[in-house]
């Protein structure tokens, strides 16, 4: 378990890390980045699995089940849409791997 002061250190350092990451991001990536950070808090899936794992009564199991259901949606959905968005970014000179799919649009 992580307790007390140690947790406070982690909270603070993680907070600064998040701040640092965002402060250098060009506007063009804000939407994918919001989507990407949305995916990252899908780690709640791990907690939801534990919550369902420690459930003892039926009502706890039901709520735990809902937790895992929602968390899996967060993680998978967040990944899929972020990947789809980033797949499309490419430069003039070097077409990225998204270019083949774009051909179908035209």
């Amino acid at each position, binding site marked *: 378990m992580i307790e007390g002061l140690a947790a406070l250190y982690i909270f603070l350092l993680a907070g600064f890390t998040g701040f640092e990451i965002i402060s250098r991001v060009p506007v063009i990536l804000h939407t994918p980045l919001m989507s990407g950070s949305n995916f990252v808090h899908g780690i709640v899936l791990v907690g939801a*699995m534990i919550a369902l794992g420690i*459930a003892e009564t039926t009502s706890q199991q039901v709520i735990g089940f809902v937790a895992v259901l929602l968390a899996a949606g967060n993680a998978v959905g967040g990944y899929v849409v972020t990947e789809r968005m980033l797949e499309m970014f490419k430069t003039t000179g070097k077409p990225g791997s998204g270019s083949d799919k774009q051909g179908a649009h035209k």
Partner: protein
Amino acid sequence: MELIIQISYLLAAVLFILGLKQMSSPVTARRGIHWAGAGMVVATLVTFAAEEITGNEQAATNVMLIIIAIGLGGGYAWYTGKRVAMTDMPQMIAMYNGMGGGAAAAIAAVELLKAQAAVQAGRASSIHDYLGADVAVLAILGAIIGTIAFSGSIIAWAKLDGRLNSNKLLPQQQLINLVLAVVLIGLAIGVYLAGSLNLIIAFFVLALVLGVFITVPVGGADMPVIISLFNALTGLAVGFEGYVLGNAAMIIAGTVVGSAGTLLTHLMAKAMNRSVANVFFSGFGTGPAAAAAADVDGTQKEIQAQDAGIMMAYANQVIVVPGYGMAVAQAQHKIWELTQLLTEKGVKVKFAIHPVAGRMPGHMNVLLAEAGVPYDMIYDMEDINADFPNTTVTLVIGANDVVNPAAKKDPASPLYGMPTLNAEASQNVIVIKRGRGTGFSGVENSLFVADNTRMLFGDGQKVANELIQAVKEL
């Protein structure tokens, strides 16, 4: 095994941070999401071996339930995520974010119910006695934040998806929200001190209602700020519940998202010339200022696609200013085709993106990228504003408020102070627009009646097609 699990969580947290870091450049962004995804897979897999899950009597049932829930929730999200149109991305992010908030709240609910059962069985005197003061406080805080993010995100999704259009709920909504917030804090303290089942239920119900009430009055234009804020809040809730469960990966990832999201929210609000408090506590343009600034003198001068096409084909430089209207008309593919034709004719073409073009910062870039526009042709506002005077033609398509000169000149305008693109500084401006109406904010635009501006009325895709024909025929 415990050590392997903890190291795996640490590895996942590092992959998340490095992944997010790589997402801060278009070149490495895609690798970034892959790294973060790998982190998620590692964390999820090792959790199946966690003592909390394997070490009790119902392990078999619960593991089965976990797999079913992941299959259902993940399957649904996979299906919807693969199908959603790029224009609908903001509301889809809101939806997935709401699910995360709901999950964090549900974790808190399980913890609180376990503690409540212990109190009822006489094994503890209160919830904080059972959980410990720090864990109880963070569990309850995470529950409030997660629940509000959950119901609020669903409302945000419904509004952006056009399923809910009302901005009004009750008279004196702000006052009611304040009272509800105070009652909610009272209930939270009650849950902490006592631990009756009814209190816990009332607590969650009220938090759900508050999330709805906070979000409903927020106008459509401010939605990205709200979504971003809920994203940050969900991160925070996940971090708090991570402490409750003693899970380092959740604490780190949740807090990183919490702080990154808060900064992102601030940046977005700043780009829109709104403070975050403003977004929550006032409707847009409802003050007397809106009416006062609505008068714009002059007439809009029309141009035909044929002439506009010729004008651009012989230009030195063309800057395209796309807005959400272009995406609605699905004209981005045609615009890219037009761009390629112009480039072949030796015209330098650039795309100028306002920070809030589209429905949230960066959304327009995604839409252009989908159409095949390379990102090195796309310029941010700060980088291109000085370039407008050297530009022969600025083509505004489906954008309005972001090129309104009143934001710079007219202190009475509700847009005043919002950074805008200097389209009016270019030699010629061509505005493609469906009709003569106002923009999202309902504010008149003096650019449309300027001497160097010509209006090209019609559906974006149709007009773009005509432009392509005009350029081809030359």
